């Protein structure tokens, strides 16, 4: 099986968020980046597990991003991907990113394309669905379990208030949510081997963006907390009713 895993980077969650150029651009100074947790913990690990189970196949990771992303990409190789592709551009919009991934995937006949559920900075949950449409493949979002049986996958996915179990034949695109696999920490051997694995850099295809950021603002500051006497919960209920008016 030929497996493609889309990986993205995101500011580390405790990073201080600030903007520049009149609040029109993210200020990356001093921000450290991590691999998006859904991509690393669930999508990538499940793809590696499938390959290990079959004892055959290949796991390729793909990232649309600048050379600075190579550190995150090498981590993916250290966890166990066989090779990596980087589409050399600053990601400009979800549609553009998906278009670039799909262009690469078209030329390389993958059986399953994995994405994360969403990136944790912009929470788009868009790229996987877009790749699927460009490739004319089924898309299964928020997979929490995936088993392959020959060319058919049985996938459980999160839906409102429950889950759905479905069958789909390859090729398809799936987005991975919590539950699909367990996080793997790269070991020393993996890190050493990652240095010798191929990381191919591909130039992007032309694409016209149709979404752009106008500006960033900070949310209105929360008024400070009103403390309620722990002995007097009637008072809390009164406040929720009379002041907050939510019960």
């Amino acid at each position, binding site marked *: 099986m030929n497996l493609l895993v889309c990986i993205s980077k995101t500011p580390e*969650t405790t990073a201080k968020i600030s*903007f520049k150029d009149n609040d029109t651009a993210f200020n990356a100074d001093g921000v450290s980046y991590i691999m998006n947790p*859904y991509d690393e913990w669930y999508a990538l690990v499940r793809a590696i597990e499938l390959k290990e189970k079959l004892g055959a196949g290949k796991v390729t990771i793909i990232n649309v991003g600048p050379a600075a992303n190579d550190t995150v990409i090498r981590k993916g190789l250290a966890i166990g991907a066989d090779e990596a592709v980087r589409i050399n551009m600053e990601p400009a919009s*979800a*549609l553009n990113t*998906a278009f670039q991934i799909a262009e690469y995937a078209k030329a390389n006949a993958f059986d399953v394309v994995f994405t994360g559920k969403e990136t*944790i900075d912009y*929470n*788009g*949950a*868009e790229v*996987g*669905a*877009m*790749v*699927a*449409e*460009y490739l*004319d493949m*089924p*898309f299964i*979002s*928020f997979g929490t379990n995936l088993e392959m049986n020959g060319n058919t996958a*049985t996938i459980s996915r999160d*839906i*409102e*208030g*429950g*889950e*759905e*179990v*479905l*069958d*789909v034949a390859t090729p398809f695109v799936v*987005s991975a949510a*919590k539950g699909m696999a367990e996080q793997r920490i790269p070991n020393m051997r993996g890190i050493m081997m990652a240095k010798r694995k191929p990381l191919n850099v591909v130039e992007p295809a032309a694409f016209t963006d*149709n*979404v*752009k*950021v*106008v*500006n*960033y*603002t*900070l*949310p209105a500051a*929360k*008024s400070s*907390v*009103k*403390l309620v006497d*722990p*002995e007097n*919960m009637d008072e*809390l*209920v009164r406040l*929720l009713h009379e002041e*907050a008016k*939510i*019960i």
Partner: protein
Amino acid sequence: MSVLVFAESPGGKIKKAVLETVTYAAKTAAALGTDCIALTIGNTTDAGQLGKYGASKVYNVAGVSHFDSQMFTSIIAEAVGKTGADVVILSNSSSGKSLTGRLAAKLNAGCISGVNSLPDVSAGFKVKKNVFSGKSIAQFEITSPVKILSVMGNSIPPEESGAAVEVEAMEVAIPASRITVKEVKTVDGVVPLPEAELVVSAGRGMKGPENWGIIEELAKVLGATTASSRPVADMGWRPHHEHVGQTGVAIRPNLYIAIGISGAIQHLAGVNSSKVIVVINKDPEAPFFKAADYGVQGDLFDVVPRLIESFKKYKAANN
């Protein structure tokens, strides 16, 4: 020109979150000086009520039995063509999320998912959403002829502005589905977290799963849905679908009561859009107090039973 809203109806039912989406679409259409047209797919009871929330027409595409993003995208895209829609609005639900991007690729349209306020159409088409775990709000401009938005739950209250309408059938090509749904398991009786207006949530301060009785009782008295912090789900104290935060479910209920949860940034990411936050924690230094509207500094094992009694008293007096 028109605004097309996809009113999803899993299990045949139109939920409150969808009425919010239709209200959002109707207001967007009004701002653009055009009509709001609603589309339902599959068997749907009471779709005509969407007229009350501002849809001037309601169409139904029959003959579809299960959700498949590929099939639904093809249907909605054809409906966009038939209605001449230039704005398409969906709910930011599990199915809405898998349609927004897909439809954008099909129609070569700019999309923004998870918007939480109405678009600004005074010059161009601009819309906002929360980014970076709620630490910032980004405003985007969509420049393509067709624009697609998915609306976050609890962003706008459903508002009646018209009357029920007749549902009209729409004939479109329905492609064969390449997905076989084998099972749909839903928990009955409780409001799913993304739709819940009242949420009672607990964390590691509970010490163990055997202590959750007071959380469940509090939730029951309030008619609330229960949630948890991530470590609690990781340790198997609570089911995974209850875990809220950056890597769990993102919610924006009217009331979020956090009990024995420290308020780590990754937890706040999923809950800090709640309208009112109550924090119960014995540590006055717990970071959650900074994000709270009301705080109770005390031992949860004393405070929660007291709070249950107070809510019971309130209910008895107000019924």
